[in-house]
């Protein structure tokens, strides 16, 4: 990904930063930008350059003059560079925070920062997309011991849970084993939504969740037809990542890895009765609230 390439790129004249004439042979603008980006992102590289390390010269095939300019840049604008690098790390942390809300909350702000710092030290270059970067982070954390004071099981379990949501987002929706059977017992769906371990983490008792699911929210607040198709992700009793689809007037769980099963077909086949609809409406509201807590992810009109 990094390094000198692109022979077609125009030549770059690194002159005039300090008023000197440029060398005859100079690196392309793209290579120069790549070297700069690497410096922005890699704190170790910045330290190494300040300590006299010249390995970046070979990596980007810089001329001696270009290397000198780069060293001068890193050394003389050190404070500003560090400030900029901090901004980059903050942006990256914010993006990761969006993907790991429950995990971040469990870990707590100071330790969350430590975990992120460990990650950015070891993986300084972000992946090509925010989602991919999130996946890389999750996998990194899976192989990391938790900071002191955190339960290793919950730590790993939570990051796996968050990671699995990202994997689902990154890939096409995956097969969910449970389907029609759950429709027959919609009143029992709610305990499956969040495994007890997560409920404890959220300091929510099953009773509270049950009250949420069983009608404290007036069902008339649900507007049939307004929501269209909504997708949610949750854990099954067997700890699988599930994808569920909620229709405008009915929630159900679909298998759609083959993309052939339509919601209406399932409705007709399962002959869902009116009480079930009411129950699903309440469940939907409960899910929405859980979604706000980061326990489940609700995506309206997710792409199929």
């Amino acid at each position, binding site marked *: 990904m990094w390094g000198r390439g*692109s022979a077609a790129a125009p030549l*770059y*004249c690194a002159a005039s*930063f300090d008023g000197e004439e440029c060398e005859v042979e100079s690196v392309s603008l793209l290579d120069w930008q790549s070297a700069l980006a690497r410096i922005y992102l890699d704190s170790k590289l910045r330290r190494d350059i300040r300590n006299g390390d010249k390995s970046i010269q070979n990596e980007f095939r810089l001329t001696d003059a270009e290397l000198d300019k780069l060293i001068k840049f890193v050394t003389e604008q050190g404070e500003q560079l560090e400030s900029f690098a901090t901004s*980059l790390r903050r942006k990256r942390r914010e993006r990761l925070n969006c993907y790991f809300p429950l995990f971040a909350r469990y870990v707590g702000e100071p330790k969350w920062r430590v975990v992120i710092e460990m990650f950015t030290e070891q993986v300084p270059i972000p992946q*090509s997309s925010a989602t991919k970067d999130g996946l890389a982070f999750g996998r990194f954390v899976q192989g990391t011991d938790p900071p002191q004071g955190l339960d290793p099981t919950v730590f790993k379990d939570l990051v796996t849970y968050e990671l699995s949501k990202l994997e689902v987002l990154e890939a096409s929706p995956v097969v969910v084993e449970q389907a029609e059977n759950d429709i027959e017992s919609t009143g029992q769906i709610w305990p499956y939504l969040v495994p007890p371990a997560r409920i404890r983490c959220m300091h929510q008792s099953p009773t509270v969740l049950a009250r949420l699911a069983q009608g404290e929210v007036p069902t008339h607040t649900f507007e049939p037809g307004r929501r269209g198709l909504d997708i949610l992700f949750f854990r099954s009793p067997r700890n699988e990542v599930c994808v569920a689809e909620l229709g405008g007037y009915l929630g159900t769980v679909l298998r759609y890895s083959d993309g052939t099963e339509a919601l209406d077909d399932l409705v007709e086949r399962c002959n869902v009765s009116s009480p079930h609809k009411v129950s699903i409406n309440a469940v939907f509201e409960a899910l929405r609230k859980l979604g706000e807590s980061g326990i489940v992810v609700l*995506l309206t009109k997710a792409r199929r």
Partner: protein
Amino acid sequence: VSVNYLGVGLGYRRELQVALESHTGEVDFLEVIGDECFEDTACEALDLWATRMPIVCHFLGLSLGTAEAIDEAYLTRVRTVIARLRPVWISDHLAMTRVQGVDLGHLSPIAFSEESVALIARKAADVQARCGLPLLLENISYDFSLPGGSMKEVEALTRVVQASDCRILLDLTNLHVNSQNHGYDPYAYLDELPLERVSQIHIGGAVLRGSSWVDSHAHEVPMPVFDYLDYTCARSTVSSILLERDRAIPDFSELAAEMSRARDILRAYRNCPLAG
């Protein structure tokens, strides 16, 4: 809607949705972050706003300063947003956000060099032609000057917009931050800029951290920014001013007060219908 005549607007943020409903009459136009509209769901909330008032789309990821071709997938998404929200114009930055597949996630400065100017002008003209809308280029705040520069920022911006026939989104807060941090005269900058090419102005929050100013978008607009606004309005025809607030969003009344101040300045120089 005239290209230069939108009034005083506000940067749309989800957190402002409810307040905007109650204060629609106090906002002339909205600027939405185009990148946040790439997801269908995020765009839904804006569909209605697009029918209520003019919208402009501000993008973050064209990365015009990178010495690579425009990311076609990104441009396709930009065009999809344009088709959906029908903005008056679009804008992005005189910056680099992506290099060789790596997303920096932040606006990075460019070297103010002949080569950069030619590169950005070429790419900007291409984007403008393919999007079928005016493309405005914004001056960013930058912590450091890159090696390889051979001209001042204002000259680079001027030459880019002239060569590409694009327009300028003049961020007066960034001007304030840069002029303070890099020690130059902001009024000289404005004097050198082709103000007739300025279609929109950004004003936003900034804060002094240590010895450096930072465009935080989380604080009130610094007083000198309103002075620059007055100076610019007196010397140009620009009539589209936008208040940006991304974080620590206060009560709407505080935002309204800042918009009102900008509106008063605009009214002093323009005879145009304005909200509020």
